[in-house]
């Protein structure tokens, strides 16, 4: 297979540090220097190394327990963050890749594969961002074209036919905005996916493993369970895009990120996602195996839960869940009097009218 390689990640590379991790980087460098001088654990530097390591752990704990929304976005985009391929090779067994939407082409930005998790056979749908630059270009940095969404739907229908649960792993900056994508109906492709996923008669579990970029993420993100990794984000618009609109300045992205409430914790508070999957200390990229173990535990538990529910009940539950999104609208009496024309008596809503009528004592006609 040319673009999609399922080999496990190569030997650990030097960690790439994010802006806010300067101090951590400094400590790591010190530890590294001391190690170079003396390899043994009993050497003269051992105590110092242990002290520095403790300090580094403490620092990471501090940093990562109070990540700002923007820092979370940065972690979710970390160049070493585990991508779909890592999950395919470490989490699932016996992967069989399926290609093509039977219509136009094979979009590398969305990968569809049959695989096994535990003893369960599943259909896996996920965004592929690509590890190296060649692969990144081949799969458009994870921005899918319409054929990608149509491929996903075709494979999900296949899964439905044979009763395989569907697992989607979301990691995309957004659906691709290009001329070809528009010509081939990007909006139609996503719209059809939303409608069909809401009524596919198999359990669907969605996990945001990195970036959840708007419609591009939602296009494979409708299901019975929606979980997010702790330091992933899911938003209606990229923080940069939001900043460009509201502040007319893309560099205000940190403030936009804060305002958009796009972190897993915030979204759980808003009851838009079901579960936050914990990441190891310092983010998923610092310990890929632990991350994937946590995701696996979540998937196995959810699969077991969902398989116990009868399919008709599951469909109803899914529908009610989707319908409940944003159902907290408030009722207001809309008829505010026009400010310029005070002489016109206030118009009241029916509800307010009744209340007012109840307040004013009813004058009983006095019999003369």
């Amino acid at each position, binding site marked *: 297979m040319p673009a999609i390689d399922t080999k496990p990640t190569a030997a650990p590379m030097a960690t790439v540090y994010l802006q806010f991790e300067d101090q951590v980087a400094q400590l790591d460098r010190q530890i590294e220097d001391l190690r170079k001088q003396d390899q043994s654990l009993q050497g003269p530097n051992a105590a110092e190394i242990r002290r520095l390591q403790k300090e580094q752990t403490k620092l990471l704990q501090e940093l990562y327990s109070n990540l700002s929304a923007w820092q979370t976005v940065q972690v979710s985009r970390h160049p070493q963050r585990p991508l779909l391929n890592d999950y395919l090779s470490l989490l699932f067994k016996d992967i069989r890749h399926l290609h093509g939407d039977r219509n136009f082409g094979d979009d590398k930005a969305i990968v569809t594969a049959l695989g096994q998790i535990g003893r369960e056979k599943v259909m896996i749908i996920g965004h592929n961002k690509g590890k190296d630059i060649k692969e990144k270009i081949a799969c458009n940095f994870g921005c899918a074209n319409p054929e990608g969404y149509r491929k996903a739907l075709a494979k999900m229908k296949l899964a439905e036919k044979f009763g395989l649960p569907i697992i989607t792993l979301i990691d995309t900056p957004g659906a691709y905005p290009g001329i070809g994508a528009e010509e081939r109906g990007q909006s139609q492709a*996503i*719209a059809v996916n939303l*409608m069909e996923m809401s009524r596919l008669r198999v359990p669907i579990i969605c996990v945001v493993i990195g970036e959840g970029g708007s419609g591009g993420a939602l296009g494979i993100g409708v299901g019975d369970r929606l979980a997010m990794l702790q330091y992933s984000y899911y938003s209606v618009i990229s923080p940069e895009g939001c900043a460009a609109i509201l502040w007319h300045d893309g560099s205000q992205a940190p403030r*936009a990120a804060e305002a958009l409430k796009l972190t897993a914790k915030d979204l759980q508070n808003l009851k838009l996602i079901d579960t936050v999957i914990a990441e190891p200390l310092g983010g998923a990229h610092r310990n890929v195996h632990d991350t994937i173990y946590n995701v696996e535990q979540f998937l196995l538990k959810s699969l077991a839960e969902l398989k116990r529910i009868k399919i008709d009940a599951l469909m109803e539950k899914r529908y009610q869940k989707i319908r409940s999104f944003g159902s907290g609208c*408030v009722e207001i009496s809309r008829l*505010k009097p026009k400010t310029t024309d005070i002489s016109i008596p206030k118009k009241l809503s029916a509800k307010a009218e009744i209340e007012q009528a109840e307040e004013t004592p009813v004058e009983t006609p006095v019999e003369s």
Partner: protein
Amino acid sequence: MAKNKKVGWNGFSLKPRKEMPAGLWMACSACQQMLYRKTVEENLSVCPECGYHFRVDAPTRVRQLVDEGSFEEIAADLASSDPLNFTWEDKAYKDRIQFDPEKSDSHEALLTGKAFIKGRGVVLAAMDFNFLGGSMGMVVGEKFCRGVDLAIEQKLPFLVVCCSGGARMHEGLVSLAQMAKTSAALARLDEMGGLYISLLTDPTTGGVAASFAMLGDIIIAEPQALVGFAGPRVIQETIKIELPEGFQRSEFLLDHGFIDMIVKRRDLRSEIARLIDYCGK
């Protein structure tokens, strides 16, 4: 000539701006002809010279489409709970969505109700671009779904007039979820065998295009309407080349097979009535 200063949503611009400018006289934004406002309004807000379709707000749209006096609004009193408590600079989203009778007749971006079109009963939902760019938030989603529920319950066709910039970012992921919500409701309507007609008007983009707008059993568009997933500005910034003339317009979509027909505004009533006769129950 008096020109409207910054109509609509703060910072939102889908160039060129094409609302009808205020004043007794106005210039057509397409052919630059000076027009008497009343003539244009009587002509359903279509330029009598070049046939350019101006944007109309939801109440006007409803007046133009349905039989006189037949519209009964539902779910009129819903308002957003501002789930994110969204503020930017010194502005708050909460203040933006306050109903302001001075500015417009609408107090949300969707007007839903039951009506008759040439004697055929329909459930109608019309979007309003004047309200925060017609963007879809929790109220739009909820009103849409209640409209679908009513259509299912009373076995009526469901007609939507789309006119929106997309999902409302002030409500964050809640508005994105409305895409799933409206689509799921339409799946129900579909299963019940209900007819769903989607009418695309200028502009229909973003989250609205990528959900209910494109799910119509029959999709109609007004001439020259901008319809697409990403706005032209975003595409241009991404791929850095000049976009071809007529890109993402109704005619472009018709050519590429994504809409059924383009109908001029003055023919909409009769065309929709005819379609209901064919497909409705």
